[in-house]
């Protein structure tokens, strides 16, 4: 599913003294099959943007009907769904666009992991062709396996699991319906480096088998640079850059000024340049380690 957004604006608490404009004229296209990274500081509008993609935040009705003359008409399409229309079937859309929120483990509620994972499956089920117990069970087990959880956890209470297992179970609860687009808001938040790496590996596996398009939202440029095929940078509600992530490294200075944590390697290059050493730096920390090891004659 190709995602096209043009001239999106969104204001929280519109018309009150708490009004905050979170999106300002956002135009962005995400191609099918991409592992897309959305990068931005807290409050840059990145989460607001992705919540538009499955209709959790909808375009204001007034804007849909009578846009101000001088403003260009907003466009938002996700595959065949036109979210500017009044008749969008949001349930169908949400089945196609899975959303994993930040700290998804806090949404677990059911008595067993299996029941929790099946929650979405049952919600989206066609009223006429309810899935049988067997179909549900096999879908649940496939999802648990895909996130790397042992089949033995299925009958445990979700609250007995470890933190990392809970997060995997929560992701399983989203991918169980086989969404075409999977959106994850800060999927690695609060994990240690090893946990982060494991989650990213998991997402790469899902990108191949389960979901055509994966979109991750993050404030960590290393994470995006190491994993994504394409990236967009949000700042103060606007899209400032749309670049292949490696390009981000060349723009270290610009991005640092916008308050983003720039990749380690880019930081290193900036420092070297300040000291008059010109280095090419379009590689990631992992590449860097590989190169050093190669120089030393060892294998990474």
């Amino acid at each position, binding site marked *: 599913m190709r995602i096209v957004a043009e001239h999106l604006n969104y204001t*929280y*608490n519109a018309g*009150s*003294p*708490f009004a*905050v404009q*979170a999106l300002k004229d956002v135009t962005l296209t995400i191609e099918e099959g991409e592992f897309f990274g959305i990068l931005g500081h807290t*409050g840059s509008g990145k*989460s*607001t943007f992705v*919540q538009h993609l*499955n209709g*959790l935040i909808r375009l204001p009705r007034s804007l849909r009907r009578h846009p101000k003359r001088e403003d260009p008409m907003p466009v938002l399409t996700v595959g065949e769904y036109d979210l500017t229309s009044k008749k969008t079937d949001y*349930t169908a859309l*949400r*089945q196609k666009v*899975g*959303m994993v*929120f930040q700290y*998804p483990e*806090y*949404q*677990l*509620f*059911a008595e067993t992991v299996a029941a929790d994972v099946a*929650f*979405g499956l049952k*919600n*989206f089920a066609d009223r006429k062709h309810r899935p049988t117990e067997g179909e549900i069970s096999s879908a649940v087990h496939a999802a648990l396996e895909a996130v790397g959880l042992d089949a033995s956890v299925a009958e445990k209470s979700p*609250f007995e699991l470890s933190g990392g297992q809970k997060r995997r179970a929560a992701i399983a*609860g*989203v991918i169980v*319906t086989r969404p075409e687009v999977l959106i994850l808001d800060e999927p690695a938040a609060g994990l240690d480096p090893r946990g982060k790496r494991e989650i990213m590996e998991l997402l790469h596996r899902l990108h191949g088998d389960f979901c055509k398009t994966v979109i991750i939202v993050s404030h960590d440029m290393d994470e995006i640079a190491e994993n994504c095929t394409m990236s967009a940078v949000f700042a103060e509600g606007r899209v400032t850059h749309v670049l292949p992530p490696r390009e981000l490294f060349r723009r270290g200075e610009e991005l640092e000024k916008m308050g983003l944590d720039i990749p380690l390697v880019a930081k290193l290059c900036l420092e070297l340049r300040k000291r008059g050493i010109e280095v090419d730096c379009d590689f990631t920390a992992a590449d860097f380690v590989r190169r050093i090891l190669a120089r030393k004659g060892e294998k990474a």
Partner: protein
Amino acid sequence: MKDVAFGQYYPVDSFVHKLDPRLKLLFLAAYITSVFLARNFWGIGLCALVMIAVILSSRVPIHKVLRAVRGVVILIAVTSVIYIFFYDGEGEPLWSWGVFAVYREGIYFALFLVLRLFLLVTCSSMLTYTTTPVALTDGIESIFRVHVVALVMSIALRMIPELTGEVERIKNAQKARGADFESGGLIRRVRALVPILIPLLISSFRIAGDLAEAMDARCYMAGKKRIKYKKLAFGPRDLVGFLVGAALVTGVVLLNVYMGSVF
């Protein structure tokens, strides 16, 4: 970043907003006393005038103030209807039909009652419109000298936006998994709340635990004597507020004595 207004507080910069919360609480007490003391239209009129002055100087838009009254409109309407039709006055009724009789006194009484209720609701909502919950608990603590009660109150108030945000997050997460909170009968809707309530309960315990730990880490001891980071201090502005309050009570009492009563 969510669609929640924090309590009732209306954040603008105004004379009334800057008043000491303790003074505002005292003023509220004085105002309510005046409204109850007033025994004629002059007195209640004076109260109304003061309220208009307060509203104007607070820069809270009038539709916000009226919204606060909306909740008691039915109560006001019902009681005034009862007063108008069932109050037994002296002399000839203005109009009568069976058990219903409208007397001049009944109409006065109803009007008086409407004004009274209207002013009572407006003045207390003006307090919450112009005072942050934190300032309010500070004021209460300073007047009543009970720290723990004020602490519990301020934590409770602090948690309202926190928990509303949490509900919003959980609701969105479940909606993204196809949960439907808007359709179906009563039982279906109540059942649909389970996937929100259980995570919310767990989150509340987590937040409470985090808060307790954070307070503990800062060596909080409930019984110990405490000092204030920001001390409340009366200023010249508060003197003006005090004088207006005192003048109001005196004025109402004098009007009662000299202008007679409607009762």
